[in-house]
């Protein structure tokens, strides 16, 4: 390590059991001025208790509007290594599966063209290449596409959809999360690369209501697995659980949110008409219980962080939809949603805020869906109904 790298505050973060990002940055500091100056600037931030980055500038690769976050040091004289420190967002694979063969190609490219630092992964799901110069953006992009990798989104565009491990390693998956994730990412390349929306649009895909991608909280559109029929029961495995001495009554029956489970000796009885598909019993008794056979997904819209009208969870727009190749029903829905949002939404208005502004009823009408009681917690409690059908003097009703 070079002598001029004095980072006593950061050095303290090399101690302790949790893996240290400081160690990792330092491991690049010998090879890369960028990494070294990143540490030096960060040390100054730790001293002064403030960041030293300028507000991002518009940089990118030819023909793309998103995928790169421009970043410049506010103190380029002091820290020339990070005078440019742009981020490139790369589409991760479905379910974040890699082989060493494939990922080594990326590490090689990034060591050559950038800081050698990454976020694996970014909060939206992208493989984030952290820190390079403007003039390296296009060469890095070419090297990446050459190996079959492409940029993710940023700005007012579709972001790289992400999905849970689903059918690749989970017994709960109610549809093929990886396939639909791959399909949508490819189907909407243009929307992903060229910001034309009112604001960002994130898609997250979870195979069941455990929602391991946090779709209900962090995606403008969630595709979340669900079933319509009865929970499947393996009585033999169920009896084994009881025999094992497990407190099925306390741990399962009493935790069912609708109290629709009864334990009768070694037998479990579920009033499926009252089961709200919360997954708890299936989670605790994975060998005995599994989701029903009539599987599909609920589509939720509108989750987002609090800026600016307060955080929103996604709300159910399609209570149940089959999710099957070639996913045309999903495309059709997405396109109806985008079209209506595009026409009536305003700039920097996320889909969730848009629906609240125009009202759920108007939104459903706009995208051509029928209102269903599954879309709400409860009907309105205020009497301010905008009646549209009424009787006119001449007797012609409308």
């Amino acid at each position: 390590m070079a002598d001029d790298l004095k980072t006593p505050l950061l050095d303290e973060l090399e101690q302790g059991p949790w893996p240290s990002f400081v160690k990792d940055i330092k491991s690049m500091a010998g090879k890369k001025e960028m990494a070294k100056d990143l540490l030096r600037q960060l040390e100054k931030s730790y001293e002064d208790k403030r960041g030293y980055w300028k507000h991002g500038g518009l940089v990118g690769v030819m023909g793309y509007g998103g995928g790169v976050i421009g970043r410049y040091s506010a103190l380029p004289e002091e820290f020339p290594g990070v005078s440019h420190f742009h981020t490139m967002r790369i589409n991760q694979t479905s379910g974040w599966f890699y082989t060493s063969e494939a990922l080594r190609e990326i590490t090689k490219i990034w060591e050559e063209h950038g800081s050698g630092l990454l976020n694996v992964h970014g909060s939206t799901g992208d493989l984030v290449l952290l820190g390079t110069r403007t003039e390296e953006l296009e060469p890095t992009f070419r090297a990446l596409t050459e190996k079959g990798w492409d940029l993710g989104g940023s700005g007012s565009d579709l972001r790289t959809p992400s999905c849970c491990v689903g059918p690749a390693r989970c017994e709960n998956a109610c549809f093929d999360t990886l396939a639909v994730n791959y399909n949508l990412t490819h189907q909407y390349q243009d929307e992903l690369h060229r910001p034309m929306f009112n604001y960002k649009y994130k898609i997250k895909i979870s195979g069941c209501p455990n929602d391991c991608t946090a779709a209900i909280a962090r995606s403008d559109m969630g595709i979340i697995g669900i079933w319509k029929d009865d929970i499947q029961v393996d009585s033999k495995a169920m009896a084994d659980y009881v025999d094992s001495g497990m407190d099925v009554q306390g741990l399962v029956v009493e935790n069912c949110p609708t109290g629709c489970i009864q334990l009768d000796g070694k037998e479990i009885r579920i009033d499926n008409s009252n089961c709200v598909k919360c997954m708890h019993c299936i989670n605790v008794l994975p060998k005995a219980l599994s989701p029903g056979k009539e599987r599909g997904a609920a589509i939720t819209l509108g989750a987002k962080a609090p800026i600016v009208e307060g955080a929103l969870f996604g709300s159910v727009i399609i209570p149940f939809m089959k999710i099957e190749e070639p996913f045309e029903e999903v495309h059709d829905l997405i396109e109806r949603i985008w079209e209506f949002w595009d026409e009536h939404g305003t700039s920097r208005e996320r889909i969730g805020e848009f629906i609240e502004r125009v009202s759920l009823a108007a939104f459903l009408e706009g995208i051509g869906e029928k209102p269903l009681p599954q879309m709400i917690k409860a009907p309105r409690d205020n009497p301010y109904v905008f009646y549209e059908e009424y009787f006119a003097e001449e007797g012609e009703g409308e």
Partner: protein
Amino acid sequence: MATEVERKTDIGPPHYDQFLHPLIKENYGKWQYHETLAPGVLMHHGPAGDIYTVRVSSPRLVSVNFLNAIMDLADKYSDGYFRFTSRNNVEFLLASKDNIEPLKQEVEALGLLVGGTNNAISNVVHTQGWVHCHSAATDASGLVKSVMDELAEYFTSMKLPAKLRVAVACCLNMCGAVHASDIAILGVHRTPPKIDNETLPNLCEIPTTVASCPNNAIRPTSIEGKATVKVDEEKCMYCGNCYTVCPAMPLADPLNDGVSIWVGGKICNARTEPMFTKLAIPYLPNNPPRWPEVTSAVKKIVEIYAANAKPYERVGEWINRIGWPQFFDMAGIEFTKYHLDDFRHAGTTYRRSLHNRY
């Protein structure tokens, strides 16, 4: 050189198929159940055989060296196959049970931890902080490191009543999971933007800037004949939305920026519906590199939760059972006017019944 080959665009990500272990392909969509063999070690059972997952911590902000080391291990133990989780852990996918122990040893030798499964604290979803973002009121990676050094034992064991998800975000944009986590740590600005009247007229569109404020705190004005804006400090809630659209309105303020602590959010539908995270501690000082006030506050909350919640009770479910008055008592946190909501739907948070604990 690179310019000579044909330029490719809009190719999207590679097909996932090539990244799936052969055993996974055979069991694809046919998994029957899973077992947690040890902290960080899962077995998934399918008709074609079992696959073993070893889950390993990652600082997320990593170097190519880190990834290369992971890949070396993957080549050695999991036929080159591995994945990352939605919370940024590494998962090695092993066809052979015998590889578990040697892999664990090599992982630990690298200074990484095996764990994060089941009733554990898993990896911390977090953001850029002072490492990369212009908006940050604090550093994310440093906070995560400091907090997880204290909580590592909960990553490598499964002794909590339920899963406990921690998130960190460095400003109110909350890039990550702060608004729905069991415990969240949020960087906050606490003073209005400082307007750079010199550069503002060139850098920002005045109407857009005025419109950006959710609370109508920004007015157009002019100073020495130059059009600029002013902020009504009474109305400013330090959200930073103006700064996002106008670089000449930074909020950073070393004296006052700091950290707030939030509790009780959850995402999954198990038992209860998803819940937002609620304010626990409005402000703790930014105290790098170790943020001792923050780490001890978080640790305290984890510990009273661990000692008092029932099995499968997430933090929010536990607090709902015992009531917020008792939570504040037990956690030794002062209840202040800042805890009272005053935003759009504040009225929906008022106690509108006689159901109460004294």
